[in-house]
């Protein structure tokens, strides 16, 4: 068969110079569009030295922004994790009418502009919103406060966990769960000891992507935040304010933290794909 192999590979490949021109073109494009923006963030952040960088990250408003971002993600991500598991359990393990419609609706937030995702909560809970008068008379503030930030973040990160788990659980079927139940396990035992071990890497994958978006979201939270310094500014919003004040070093310093988050996300994501690729839905087709 060696003769066949060489003819097959030459039929499917280009001459060396075409190959290297294409590789060169692709790499040049990626360097220009992906790598340079990443590099410039760190270069600008460190332009005035490490001290200025450190000062920018430790001033009270920056610390407050970091804390707020962590708080919002700490509420939004578990909420969507719980939802994702529940939704994929009922969609993947059962057959019922209207299933496809339900899947489409779960994916819906991905096709809505981030700004519209914020706008809808302003129209619902803002001063002139549908529930505005009721909320005001009860002294509850949602818009321009933390609850609004959490709601907007939940909306934009809504499908991440579900859309990773649904195809994975559908592919795994429910034979193992049925076996456990027939052998006398309770529903919860089956879930914790059979289902969760089967989906754990997919779960982590979904949570990882969900968290990256939750901490980095800008458009949606920008609309509901009100931009009160030290109070309702998440990290991306703090970056915007500093940038618009021409405080570039500080803006890029805070941005560099978010860029590091993105890099860590990419590394863990790739590691999961390489190591557990066959236990993830995203890498199978």
């Amino acid at each position, binding site marked *: 068969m060696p003769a066949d192999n060489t003819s097959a590979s030459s*039929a499917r490949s280009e001459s060396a110079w075409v190959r290297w021109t294409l590789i060169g073109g692709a790499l040049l494009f990626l360097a220009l569009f992906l790598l340079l923006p990443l590099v410039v*963030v760190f270069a600008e952040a460190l332009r005035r030295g490490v001290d200025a960088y450190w000062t920018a990250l430790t001033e009270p408003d920056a610390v407050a922004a970091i804390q707020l971002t962590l708080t919002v993600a700490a509420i939004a991500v578990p909420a969507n994790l719980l939802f994702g598991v529940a939704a994929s359990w009922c969609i993947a393990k059962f*057959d019922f009418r209207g299933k496809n419609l339900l899947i489409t609706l779960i994916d819906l937030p991905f096709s809505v502009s981030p700004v519209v995702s914020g706008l*809808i909560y302003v129209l619902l809970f803002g001063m002139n919103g549908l529930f505005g008068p009721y909320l005001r008379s009860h002294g509850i503030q949602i818009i321009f406060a933390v609850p609004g930030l959490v709601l907007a973040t939940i909306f934009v990160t809504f499908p991440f966990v579900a859309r990773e788990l649904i195809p994975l659980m559908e592919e795994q079927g429910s034979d193992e769960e049925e076996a456990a139940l027939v052998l006398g396990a309770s529903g919860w035992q089956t879930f914790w000891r059979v289902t969760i071990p089967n989906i754990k890497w997919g779960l982590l994958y979904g949570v990882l992507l969900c968290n990256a978006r939750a901490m980095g979201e800008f458009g949606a939270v920008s609309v509901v935040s009100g931009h009160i310094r030290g109070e309702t500014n998440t990290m991306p*919003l703090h970056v915007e304010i500093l940038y618009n004040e021409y405080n570039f070093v500080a803006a890029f310093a805070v941005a560099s933290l978010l860029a590091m988050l993105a890099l860590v996300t*990419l590394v863990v994501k790739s590691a999961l794909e390489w190591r557990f690729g066959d236990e993830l839905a995203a890498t199978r087709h």
Partner: protein
Amino acid sequence: MTVINAPATALRQPFFKKPSILPGFGLTLGFTLSYLGVLVLLPLAALVVKAGGLGWVGFWTAVTSPRVLAAFQVSFGLSFVAALVNAVFGFLVAWVLVRYDFPGRRLVDALVDLPFALPTAVAGIALSALYAPNGWVGKPLNDLFGLKVAFTPIGIAVALTFIGLPFVVRTVQPILQDLPPEEEEAAASLGASRLQTFFSVIMPALLPALVTGFALSFARGVGEYGSVIFIAGNMPGLTEILPLLIVIKLEQYDYVGSAAVGTAMLLVSFLMLLVLNLLQQWMRSRHAR
């Protein structure tokens, strides 16, 4: 026992569901529907209700004012340009990643997802620093060609290209990977040149995926906000995108106006979703053959 119980269990199932011995259907479906209803469907309905307060004529007047129309043109036109650029270069990147081996291929493969992972505001300030008249890329472009990128429509296209690139690569890549080698070999053995094989064997098989990637990139571009506003310059009628117009109207307390534009954008998203579903069906039918 089980045999006797089976029909009884089947009878207790809701009418719209096939029987199963697994528990938790009611609980999980109930939770899913309430969570979805309260957090997604109700707020989206509020948007449409608010815009509906204008009536048909009012709504039409609001979304066809010159400033809104200009923003539509900017958002759609430049998203289209960016999606075209991505279709070409995203295809190239997917091709190189699947077909060739070179040092650092895995690293490059991982880097392609950067626009998904990098917060849009960070991408926005990074791109505007790069392409500003004194930036690393902006300065040479300005000095050599007199080309201004930041604060012009070209800048918006650059940001939308950045944001949309992974969509094309990640849609084309798996299809290219699964392309059966036999067809190409057959074409070659029947005397087709490599270029002929590419255009009459490979391209037709990849076209649905490429169009889907284009549409995803386009749809993302129309709604994009964070990465664009820093580099755009935001001049009404020239570099003002639709999402920014919503924010401006909201800041002017024009809730109904922003709801109208938001509803128009939502309708467009629904339309895109429909088109994408049809494209995916097309892709699947092609892929199955």
